[in-house]
Each structure stands twice: as C-alpha cells, then as structure tokens.
C-alpha cells in the first residue's frame, strides 16, 4: 500500500510499512471519532444545560447499569480489535524468514558499523537490494542504541551482551533515514545515516564496485587460527579437547547440568566470553575466557565463520550427543564416527 501521497507519514518503503500504516489509520480514525464525539457532546451539554437561575438545583439523575455496561463493553471490544491487529503484525514480523540475507550491525558511540556477509563494510549507511529479505544481526560495543528506519516502520534496541535481530524487505529504491532511537550520550542526535535501497542490478553493481574486502567469515577463520581455537576445536572445527563446531550452528546442545540449549548467535558469543556459563556435556571446564581479547567486530566475524557453509559439516556434529568427540581417528573423515 503506497502511502507516500498521504501527508504526515514517512515514505512507505518496505513490505511492512503499509500494514503498520493501515493499523495507524484505523487507530487515528477511532481516536478522532471519539475525540469529536466526546468534545461535541460536552459542548452541546454545556450550552444546552447552562445555568439559567442562580438557585436552580437539577433533579439528580440516577445512574444506568445499561449505559455503564454499554460503554465498558464496546470500548473493550474496540480495544481488543486494536490489540489483535497489532499483535498479529508484530508476531509475523518477529520471525525472520530462513532465506533472508544476513547483514551484521554493530552500534557504538556514535556510529553504526555495518558488515555485509560478502565483505563490504559501511559506516552509517546500509545498501540493500529491493525485493530481497534482509536480516540484521545486531550488537553494540558500549551502551544501548536503537536501529530505527522510519520508512520501513521498524526498530530494535541493540543491547550489550546479546544479539538482537531485525528483518525487512525493501519495496522501493531510495535513500531513507536511519536514526539511533535510544539515548546513548553526547552525540545521540548525530548517530544517524541512510538506508540506500537499490534495484537488484544497481545493488550488484555497487557490490562489485565497492572495494572488496575480506568477507567476515574469512576474517573469522583467521581469528580462529590466531587465537588458538584450533588447538581444542580442531582445524576444521571437528573437535578434540573441545566440542566440535562444524555443523554446530542452529543445533541443540546438551549441557553438563542436563539442560539443552539451541546453539544460536547468543550462545556462540557467550561461550567465547564466558565459557563456564554453559558447559557442553562430556567436556571439562578448560576453555579460557576471551573477554577483553576480542572486539564486537571480531566476535561477529567468528560468528560468521561458524555459520559459514564450510563449517556446516557433512553430518550432525557430536555436540548433539553426550559422547565426547575426542579420539576420532584421522580417517574418520571417510568413515562416520561410531554412534553410541
């Protein structure tokens, strides 16, 4: 639904904008209706029943259970329609589609650092192709910020210690405002930029035109080697003293305390910074913490590496079974490891 001709509304540039605008117009309509209704009745009564005699005492009017019920139930029903509509759009929007292209965003005082999976880095600008689903995986280096794109009707806080996500599909090429929408200190008003939506062909030109840099997955692999992760997790992520990482992402992991968790972005990040928090069943508490040794950028890159196709593994990793993957013979690459 194109609403760019309607004043007082930002450009409608995503698949979500029209849906949010429709609900907004409904809310506005109901608000204007009741405001005019109440004000109108007020003005009418105040004029019609103005005091004509200084000593007049009006006859007391008994209450009315019927009226009370009517004007409790009808507003409640209207409120419930608003709730249901808002919740439905929200719920739909809360699940990023599985085929979305991932882009990493790190907020810091006072800029947005964007990293495409293909390697392009941007500061305060995000180029996206129109018509493709984009999922933002977002973190922050310092305080809470908020990634706000009015034209797409979306925003989400970036919170220290975790990753948050947003997804959208742009529908119209153009340059749209990007704002930080959570107060973050001195230059909060300056933490702004643009979302540049481009037709797919133009976007491909931009991709190849901009200076090609290392993709975050490649950078992540290098960190994986320099920081010594290979010594416990194996050069191909096959595991050893530590759990296997190949094929880990997205799977259920069994922990020493009997619980199981999903190995998502947050789990990976936490395991690097605070390994004791969730120990994988069958492994000892020997992983050192890398708190203070890796930046948020580097964490994103390691994450990208672990999620990369080369790390998907030919079979479910042994992290899913309680049995340690240790002592797998080198020829195991050809023969599946025995299952217990």
């Amino acid at each position, binding site marked *: 639904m194109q609403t760019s001709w309607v004043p007082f509304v930002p450009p409608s540039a995503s698949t979500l904008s029209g849906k949010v605008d429709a609900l907004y117009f409904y809310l506005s309509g109901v608000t204007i209706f009741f405001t005019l209704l109440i004000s109108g009745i*007020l003005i009418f009564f105040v004029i019609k029943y103005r005091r004509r005699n200084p000593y007049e005492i009006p006859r007391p009017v008994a209450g009315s259970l019927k009226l009370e019920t009517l004007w409790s139930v009808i507003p409640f029903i209207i409120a419930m329609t608003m709730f249901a509509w808002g919740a439905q759009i929200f719920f739909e929007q809360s699940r990023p589609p599985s085929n979305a292209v991932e882009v990493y965003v790190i907020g810091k005082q006072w800029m947005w650092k964007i990293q495409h999976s293909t390697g392009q880095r941007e500061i305060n600008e995000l180029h996206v192709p129109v018509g493709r689903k984009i999922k933002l995986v977002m973190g922050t280096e310092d305080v809470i910020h908020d990634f706000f794109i009015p034209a797409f009707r979306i925003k989400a806080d970036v919170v220290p210690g975790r990753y948050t996500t947003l997804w959208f599909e742009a529908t119209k090429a153009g340059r749209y405002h990007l704002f930080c929408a959570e107060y973050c200190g001195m230059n909060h008003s300056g933490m702004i930029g643009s979302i540049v939506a481009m037709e797919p062909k133009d976007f491909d030109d931009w991709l190849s035109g901009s200076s090609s840099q290392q993709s975050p997955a490649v950078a992540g692999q290098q960190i994986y080697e320099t920081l010594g992760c290979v010594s416990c997790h194996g050069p191909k992520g096959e595991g050893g003293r530590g759990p296997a990482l190949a094929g880990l992402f997205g799977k259920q992991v069994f922990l020493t305390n009997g619980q199981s968790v999903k190995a998502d972005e947050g789990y990976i990040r936490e395991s690097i910074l605070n390994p004791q928090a969730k120990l994988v069943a069958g492994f000892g508490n020997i992983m050192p913490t890398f708190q203070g040794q890796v930046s948020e950028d580097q964490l994103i890159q390691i994450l990208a590496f672990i999620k990369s196709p080369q790390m998907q593994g030919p079979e479910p990793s042994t992290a899913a079974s309680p049995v340690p993957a240790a002592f797998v013979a080198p020829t195991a690459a050809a023969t599946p490891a025995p299952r217990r």
Partner: protein
Amino acid sequence: METFVPPVPSRINYINAQYGLKSWLLTKDHKRIALLYLGSISFFFFIGGLYAMAIRLELLTPQADLLQSTTYNKVFTQHGIIMVFFFLIPSIPATLGNFLVPMMIGAKDLAFPRINLLSWYIYMLGGIVTIYALLAGGVDTGWTFYTPFSTTFSNSYVVATGLGIFINGFSSILTGLNFIVTIHTMRAPGMTWFRLPLFIWAHYATSLIMILGTPVIAITILLLAFERLAHIGIFDPAVGGDPVLFQHLFWFYSHPAVYIMVLPGMGIISELIANFSRKNIFGYSFVAFSSLAIAVFGFLVWGHHLFVASQSVYAGMIFSFLSFAVAIPSAIKVFNWTATLYKGSISYDTPMLYALGFIGLFTIGGMTGLFLAALAVDVHLSDTYFVVAHFHYIMVGGTLLAYLGGLHFWWPKITGRMYPEGWGRFSALVVFIGFNLTFLPQFVLGYMGMPRRYHVYPAEFQVLHVLSTAGASILGVGLLIPLIYLMWSMRYGKVASGNPWHLPGLEWRTQSPPPTENFDYTPVVTWEAYEFAPPEEMEVVGKFRDEVAEKV
C-alpha cells in the same frame, strides 16, 4: 423557615492563629503543611518550566545553536526529573490532598500530623540534594537512567541525583500512608465509604500505589548507585549482569507512577464536574471503583516500555493486552463525567473550564496511549516524539489542568479570597490554546520518525518544531498569569464566605479560611455525596444557626 444570613468571616483561622516562622516550620496543621508544599512545588515547577523553555528554544532550528549537545542532554534530563519527581507526583496529593482529605471526611487533621510535616522536610531535603547535583554539573542520562550508560559511561552526577530522588520517595510513601490510615479511621459519623467525595476515592487509590510502588524505585536507585560506584555487575553483562533488568525494575515503579500523577487529577475533575453542574456524578460507584481498578492494573503493564528492548515476543503480547485493558476504567470515567452534565445546571467558572479542558485533552492523551499499546505500531513510534506528545497530553493536558482547576476551585477555602474570575477564564483559554499548539504537532513529528532526545534534526522537521515552540511560549504566558493574579488575590482579592459556591461538600460547611481544627464541632453526615440543597441548608453542619452563632 429561617432567613438566610450570610456568615461573618471569623477573625481566627489557621493562617492567623499563630504568627512567626517557627509556627509554620514546626506546624502540625495539615493545612499549613499543604501551603508549605504549595510554595516548594511551585518553585520546582518553575525550574522545570525554565528547562522546558530551553528545550523548545533550541529546537526552533535544526542545528545546535543555543546549547551544546552535552548541555542539551542535561537540560532534557533535568526537565524530566524535576517535573516528574518534584512536581507531578507530589503536586495534587501534597497540596490539595493534604489540605482537603481531612476536611472532606470531617476530621480535624490527618492521622499522623507529625509524619505529615516530616514528609515535607524529606521532600525539601530530596529537593536540596537534587538541586545541589544540578548546580554541581547536572545529570545527562535521561530521567530514565538506562544502564549501562548511567552506570558506566555517563560522566555526570548520577549518584547525587539518584540520592535526591531516593530521599524524595519517602515523602511519597509517608503521604500515602497517612491518607490510607486517615480515610479508614477518621471519617466523621455518618460518612460511609459511598458518601465519600470521589476526590477521596482517587487519593485512596493513589496512596495504595505510592506505598506499594515507591519502594521499588528506591531499591532500583540503590542498585544503580552500587553498580556505578562498586561495579558489582547487576546490570553489566561483562560481569554477568543484565542491562535490561534495569529497565524492568525502573518501569515496574515508573508506570504505576504515571497513575500516581493522574488519579488525583481525576479526583479533582469529579469534584469540579459534579459541583459545577450541581449534580451527583453519574455512575458514582463506577467512577469510585475505576480508580481502584486503575491502581491495580497499573502494576501489570510495565513491559509496554520494553517492546523493542529485546523483551520476548510473548511477554510483549501479554503486556499489550493488559495495556489495552487498563485504558477501559479511564474511558468509563470520561463517559460518566460527560453523562453528569446531562440535565445539569452548568456554570462557566474557571474551575469548570479547566475540567472541560481536561476531559477533551485526557481523551486524546488516553487514546494515543492505545497507539503505543498496539505492538506493531509501537515498534515504529517507540522513542519518537509521538510518545512525548502522548505523555504531555496526560500530564499537562490532564494533571496540570486538573491541578489548576482545583487550585482555583478551593482557592477561596484555602485563602479566604476569591481570584479574579475574568483573568481566570482568560488564562484557562490561553493555556488550552498554547498547550494544543505545543503538542499536537509532536504527534505528527513522531510518526514522521523524529526521535526523542535529539537536539539536532533533519531540516524537514523544522516547521512542526517551530509550531511547537510557538505554542510553548503561549502556554508559558498562560501559566504565568495565574501566578500573578493568585498572589495578588491573597492580599487584594474579594473576601470569600465559608461557602462561596454554595456546595454540599463538608469542606464548604466551615468558614474560609478554616479554623485550625477545621470545624467548630464534629460534623454528622446525613446526606449522600453531592446532594445539593438550597444554600441556607448547606451553610451549617448539623446545628441550628443560632446555636452556632452563640458558639462563634
């Protein structure tokens, strides 16, 4: 039938009963304490208003030309802190509530007069500590103090300001305690619960929130201070803490706090509507119970401030549902007030103008709250000027208008003098126009995407900001005029009788200003709430005229 003899103002009342600074600073009289609060609250409102002018002047242009960003950040933070904690929360309960609660129920004073005085000293101490923090360098975290900015990154006087607010909270708790005990135990003979003025019901509900909610913000501030000073890791994820936990703790109080701010105002509006249409409030018990419902439900909705803060989707849905539910009791009140006017006898005195303004503006404020309760729309509107406009409609269009209406209504009772009616109506109109011009454009700004707490902004937003600032200037003028004529009237205003409006409430059945013990004798209540009668029958409480004349 006795002839109607206008009462002679007695020479002894609570103001002239004793002279001297000590008699005021060590008073136990709830009416004097109310005046002490009136003075200090007006002072803080003025300071908060100066900050508001600075904000609106800076926002006239898209660039930063009046204030540096660090200064602007302190200005909006301090505007919020002063207005919320030192004006809005105490204003009506501590001034009009303190003055009127004993009188309306026929009591001589509150249950704990010394605790009442203590609450004022605590308020002043909290205020002094906060002013010290402002003068020493100020605080720039936003009135919401979100972590980790406030614990780890801000270089401003967070702990000092927090201490001021912490101390101030006890003033709130003690006031609430006093009201609850007083209303339960000190009602005059015949004053049953359902004969109570709705002002009392509203203050009862407010007091419940005050005593149950304020301790939470007190502890939250302590945790914030410990984190900032000792870095013990409650909110810092690097040491195992959770920054969003702060938001839950903060809003668990601060959402009910907005009901502390608005419920007393609704109590005033019930009084004004009933009294200036000379009819009982339509649906009295529905209005009374809706105050209690708001107090209870108000504790269940805090998560609507965290829809985009990484709160779970399912929690979001529950809080959204409850936030819609909490709007219903307020809607019931608006409909009942409107119905009260039907076949009433309505006069256009200043207090009534403020009450009518309240109903219109509170309707807009309340319904724009529904936009924010709707999840998908709130994602877009969160942290934009839409939110700013919404809460100012309730707090200024609602609470402030109710406060002004109440102040004018009870001014003759409090001071023994009438305010000048012409000036009263004029400034009510100026306030109404100025207010709408200030905040209506902000709804549009918000949906267009203008974020909060920005002091530079894209040029396309300027026209709306200019309109808003123009409105703010008009609003400022509209608020200065009553300051002047109310003070003028204390000396030169027309002397008021005990019951200048000819109303049935107990507070009007004694002289203006009242004697220190409020009534010459304990009233015995034999009439329902807002039961109007000819003026001469409402002049004297339970005694024949000549018996009273004898006593006086």
